C-alpha cells in the first residue's frame, strides 16, 4: 500500500456562475461579453458617489430556480451585504454580496461515482453577488482596468467539504454545470469564465476526524484543470506532511501550462472583509407563491430525463447518459424520435446511434452547438423512417446524411434527386446474383466445400454491382437459397 492511500483528501468547492441576464445585477447596463472596454458602464457600476443600486428581479428568480434544483431551502428574507476590500477592478471599494442571510441554504447535489453508486454532496449556501471588473497587467507599463464586467450578476454556490477525491470534485462540478445549463440561467462556458471554480483542499490520515489546514486553489478554467489541479495539490500536501512539514493556509493559483499550483501574491489583510448590511438595498422577501411559480419553470433535469429515456424509449443507460449531457441534445433526440412513423425500441435506438456517432461527430468537427447543426432533428427522424421502411439501406443513409449536411434538403428529396431508392425487387436482385455466381465459379465451389464465410464476399460483390442500393435482407435471403440449393 502506498503512503498516499493512508491519507484522505477533504475538498469543498465554491462555484461562481455568471447569470445569463440581459443586464447587470444593480443597473441597466448590458452584460454582453466582449464589447469594447468600458462601454457597458454607468454611474452605478462605476461606483460613483451618491448612486443607488436597484436589484434586477431576474437574478432573484434565477437564484430561486437554482436553489430549488439543488434541493435548498429558500430563505423567506435575505439581505445584501458589503464585502470591503481595495482592488482597482472594484471601483466602489466593496463588493455587494450576501453574507449572513443568503437566499438559499442547506441543499444537496447527488453525484454518480465510477462504481455506479451515488454520493450526496451538501450545498451549504447559494448567494447573489456582483462580479468585479477586469485588470489587465500585461498591455501597458501601468495596470489597465475595464469595468464592463463589474456588476455582472453571479450566483456563488458553496459546497460542504464532502468530496474525497479530485474525481468526486469534478463530478460535482459537472453536475452543477449541467444543472445551470439545463435551467438556462448560465451558459456554462468555463473558458470565458461564465462558470468559475475555487477549491478548498486539506488532507488528513484516514480515520482522523479533525480537519487538516486547508489551501485554496483558484484559476482552474476547465473540468480537466480542476481534476489535475486538485490531484496536484493533494499530493503536494501529503508529500509535505510526510517530509515533516506543515501545510500553511494560503491561496494557490493553478498554472495550466506548467501544471503546477503557485502561491498567489497575497492581497494584504485579504481576510478582513468587514461585512455589514448594505444600507442601499432593501431585503428580498420570497413568499410561497413566488417559490411555487419558480418551481413551475424548472425543466426536467438531467437525472430525471436520463431515467425517462431508459424507461420510455427503452434506450440503454449509456445512450441515455450521452443524449442528456446537454438539454439541447436531449431535445434534439426527442424531436427526431417524434418524427418516427413507427415509434418502437429499434427505431429509437437507430436515432440514438445516428446522434451519438454522426451528429456529435459533425458538432465536434465543426465546433458548433446542437442548435447550429445543419441537419434538423425532423430531417434526421425522416431519414430513419426511410431506413425503417426499407426505402434506403443503412449504407445509403450515410450518403444521404452527408448530403443533408451540405444541402440541408429533406432526405426524401435527396433520395429522389440522386436515385438512391433501395431496390427491393426480388427478380432484379436475383438477376444480379446469378451474374455474380457465374462470374465466380471457384468461390462457389469453395463455399459449397464448407467455406461458408464466403457469403460475405458474395453479398459484397452483389452490393457493388447494385451500387449499394440492393436490399441487404433480400440479397442475403436469395444468395443463401442459391448457394445452398
Amino acid at each position, binding site marked *: 500500500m502506498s503512503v498516499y492511500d493512508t491519507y484522505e483528501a477533504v475538498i469543498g468547492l465554491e462555484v461562481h456562475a455568471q447569470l445569463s*441576464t*440581459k*443586464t447587470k445585477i444593480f*443597473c*441597466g*447596463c*448590458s452584460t454582453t461579453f466582449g464589447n*469594447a*472596454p*468600458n*462601454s*457597458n*458602464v*454607468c*454611474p452605478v457600476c*462605476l461606483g460613483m458617489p451618491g448612486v443607488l443600486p*436597484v*436589484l*434586477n*428581479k*431576474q437574478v*432573484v428568480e434565477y437564484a430561486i430556480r437554482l436553489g430549488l434544483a439543488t434541493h435548498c431551502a429558500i430563505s423567506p*428574507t435575505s*439581505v445584501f451585504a458589503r464585502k*470591503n476590500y*481595495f*482592488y*482597482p477592478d472594484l471601483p466602489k471599494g466593496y463588493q455587494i454580496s450576501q453574507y449572513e442571510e443568503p437566499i438559499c441554504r442547506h441543499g444537496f447535489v447527488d453525484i454518480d461515482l465510477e462504481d455506479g453508486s451515488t454520493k450526496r454532496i451538501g450545498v451549504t449556501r447559494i448567494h447573489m453577488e456582483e462580479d468585479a471588473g477586469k*485588470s*489587465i*497587467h500585461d498591455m*501597458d*507599463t*501601468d*495596470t*489597465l*482596468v*475595464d*469595468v464592463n464586467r463589474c456588476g455582472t450578476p453571479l450566483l456563488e454556490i458553496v459546497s460542504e467539504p464532502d468530496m474525497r477525491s479530485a474525481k468526486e470534485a469534478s463530478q460535482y462540478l459537472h453536475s452543477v454545470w449541467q444543472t445551470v445549463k439545463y435551467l438556462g440561467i448560465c451558459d456554462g462556458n468555463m473558458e470565458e469564465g461564465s462558470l468559475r471554480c475555487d477549491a478548498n483542499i486539506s488532507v488528513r490520515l484516514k480515520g482522523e476526524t479533525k480537519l487538516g489546514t486547508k489551501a485554496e486553489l483558484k484559476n482552474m478554467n476547465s473540468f480537466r484543470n480542476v481534476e489535475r489541479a486538485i490531484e496536484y495539490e493533494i499530493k503536494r500536501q501529503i508529500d509535505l506532511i510526510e517530509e515533516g512539514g506543515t501545510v500553511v493556509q494560503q491561496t494557490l493559483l493553478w498554472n495550466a501550462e506548467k501544471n503546477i499550483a503557485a502561491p498567489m*501574491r497575497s492581497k*494584504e*489583510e485579504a481576510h*478582513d472583509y*468587514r461585512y455589514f*448590511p448594505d*444600507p442601499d*438595498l*432593501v*431585503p*428580498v*422577501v420570497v413568499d410561497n407563491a413566488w417559490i411555487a411559480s419558480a418551481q413551475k419553470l424548472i425543466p426536467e433535469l438531467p437525472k430525471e430525463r436520463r431515467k425517462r429515456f431508459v424507461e420510455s424509449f427503452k434506450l440503454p443507460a449509456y445512450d441515455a447518459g450521452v443524449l442528456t449531457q446537454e438539454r439541447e441534445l436531449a431535445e434534439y433526440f426527442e424531436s427526431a424520435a417524434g418524427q418516427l412513423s413507427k415509434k418502437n425500441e429499434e427505431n429509437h435506438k437507430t436515432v440514438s446511434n445516428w446522434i451519438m456517432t454522426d451528429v456529435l461527430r459533425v458538432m465536434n468537427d465543426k465546433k458548433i452547438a446542437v442548435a447550429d447543426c445543419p441537419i434538423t432533428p425532423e430531417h434526421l427522424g425522416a431519414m430513419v423512417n426511410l431506413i425503417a421502411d426499407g426505402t434506403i439501406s443503412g449504407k445509403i443513409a450515410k450518403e444521404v446524411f452527408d448530403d443533408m449536411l451540405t444541402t440541408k434538403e429533406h432526405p426524401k428529396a435527396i433520395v429522389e434527386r440522386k436515385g438512391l431508392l433501395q431496390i427491393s425487387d426480388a427478380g432484379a436482385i436475383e438477376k444480379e446474383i446469378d451474374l455474380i455466381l457465374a462470374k465466380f465459379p471457384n468461390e462457389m465451389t469453395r463455399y459449397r466445400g464448407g467455406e461458408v464465410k464466403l457469403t460475405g464476399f458474395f453479398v459484397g460483390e452483389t452490393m457493388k454491382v447494385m451500387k449499394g442500393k440492393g436490399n441487404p435482407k433480400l440479397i442475403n435471403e436469395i444468395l443463401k437459397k442459391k448457394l445452398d440449393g
Partner: protein
Amino acid sequence: MSVTIKDVEHIAKLAKLEFSDAEKEKFTHQFNDILKYMEQLNSVDTTGVEPLAQVIELKNVFRDDTVKPSTPTEEALKNAPASSDVHFKVPKVIG
C-alpha cells in the same frame, strides 16, 4: 471593549491610510469615546428582538431586466486621474 493603538493601525492599513503617531494616539481616544457613548445602547433590553439591517420598511424593490443606455466611454473616463483611450489606468498591481 476598548480600542488600542494596534486597532487604529489595523483599520488605517485596511483603509490604505497613513497617520503620524500623534494622530494615531488622537484617533485611539476618539474611537474609545465614540464606543463609550454607544455603550449606552447596551442598557436596552433586546431579548427577542430580531436584528435590524434596514430602518426603512421597504422590501422587494426590483428592476426589470431591460437594457438601458450606458455612459459613453469618454464620459466614464473623464474623472479618472489617468486613462488610456478606453481604459482606466492605475499603478501596476502585479509585476
